[in-house]
């Protein structure tokens, strides 16, 4: 006797399972949103840092760098760059690009003003303060 | 159905024993509770789910699951 295996049962399991696990995802996301204030460093999300995030986005920095491990893997992790390098180094580095060393990877110069550089650094400072469960493993990112 | 009813009573007794066992001697607790759990699980699998009489090639999966889970839990209690 062959086992009963009907398309309608399979379909019900698909729809039921999909709804069930989507609701679970929504539930966990809801809890995450409740917990985030303790972890996401929102108290340091200043106007300046918000402007910095805008600069980060409109220069497509994610096209080369990672931020908290997400992005391209062509250039260093910047989620913790504030800790690794400090504000002055970051600004000087951005201003001195591209290095023009033959054969080396090049970063474009975005001609940022001092105010924009400060905003970007504020954004990195805010990012470095996010509780990332101790990632990355060390300061090199 | 008499069998099922008897097993139902058995399961309730084993549950009561599991709950009360928390106050018995500590060293004895874990093996006792695990054996209770294993018996209860096997009863549900065999007689409630009805896998004892199933002929499918897949029927071993659920008892194997119970064995692995209970065995794995038992193992971790030997670690500490």
């Amino acid at each position, binding site marked *: 006797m062959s086992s009963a295996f009907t398309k309608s049962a399979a379909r019900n399991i698909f729809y039921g399972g999909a709804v069930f696990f989507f609701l679970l995802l929504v539930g966990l996301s809801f809890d995450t949103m409740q917990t985030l204030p303790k972890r996401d460093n929102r108290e340091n999300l200043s106007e300046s840092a918000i402007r910095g995030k805008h600069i980060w986005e409109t220069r497509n920095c994610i096209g080369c760098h990672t931020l908290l491990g997400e992005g391209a893997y062509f250039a260093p992790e910047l989620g913790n760059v504030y800790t690794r390098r400090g504000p002055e180094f970051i600004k000087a580095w951005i201003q001195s690009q591209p290095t023009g060393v033959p054969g080396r990877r090049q970063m474009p110069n975005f001609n940022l003003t001092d105010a924009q550089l400060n905003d970007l650094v504020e954004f990195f400072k805010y990012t470095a303060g996010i509780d990332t469960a101790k990632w990355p493993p060390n300061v090199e990112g | 159905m008499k069998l099922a009813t008897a097993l139902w009573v058995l399961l309730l007794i084993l549950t009561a024993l599991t709950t009360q066992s928390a106050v018995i001697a500590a060293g004895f607790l874990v093996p006792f509770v695990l054996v209770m*759990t294993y018996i209860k699980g096997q009863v549900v699998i065999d007689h409630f789910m009805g896998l004892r009489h199933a002929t499918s090639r897949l029927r071993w999966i659920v008892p194997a699951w119970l064995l692995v889970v209970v065995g794995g839990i038992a193992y971790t209690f030997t670690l500490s």
Partner: protein
Amino acid sequence: MNIAATLPASHDQPRTLPGDLAIWFFIFAELLVFGVFFLAYAFARARNVELFDASQLQLDRISGAINTALLISSSYFVVRAVDRIRHGASHACAGWLVAAMTLGGAFLVLKLTEFAGKFAAGITMSTNTFFMFYIGLGFFHFMHVVLGMIILGWVAHKAWRGGYSAANHAGVETGASYWHMVDLVWIVLFPLIYVMH
């Protein structure tokens, strides 16, 4: 009750897995998830015994035990329901299923009371690893009870309207198998999280 009725129907004819094979894929997947979570709990506990033991003391073991009894009994009622439909007794089948669902509902109420107490005490999934498992796994199982009740309700409704017969009742077995799985998982979950230390 005639002689045939006292014997499990399965003795008469060899059967494959009860119900529809499709539900068994779902059951296997669910068991896998729960199994991995149980072992994860056990290994996490072994690495942090004091924390787990101390946190466990805050649980209401009696509430957990009552809930175990409720689920086991409802599982038994479902067995009765399947037995009835095998004899073509649609209304009796639906009655037993409603009884099982009532106990499931009681489980949900008790569980919610338990959770409400924990939330009132400021305990969340992020409190510590023990409570991550207690609340997370408890809630996950809670959702399974809800889903199981929806399935049973659907089956009961169809049974009441005469949608199943002694010859054709795979749908009842399908729902029953899922409900027994929910019960089986709780049978392991209760001693693991509430009792063993």
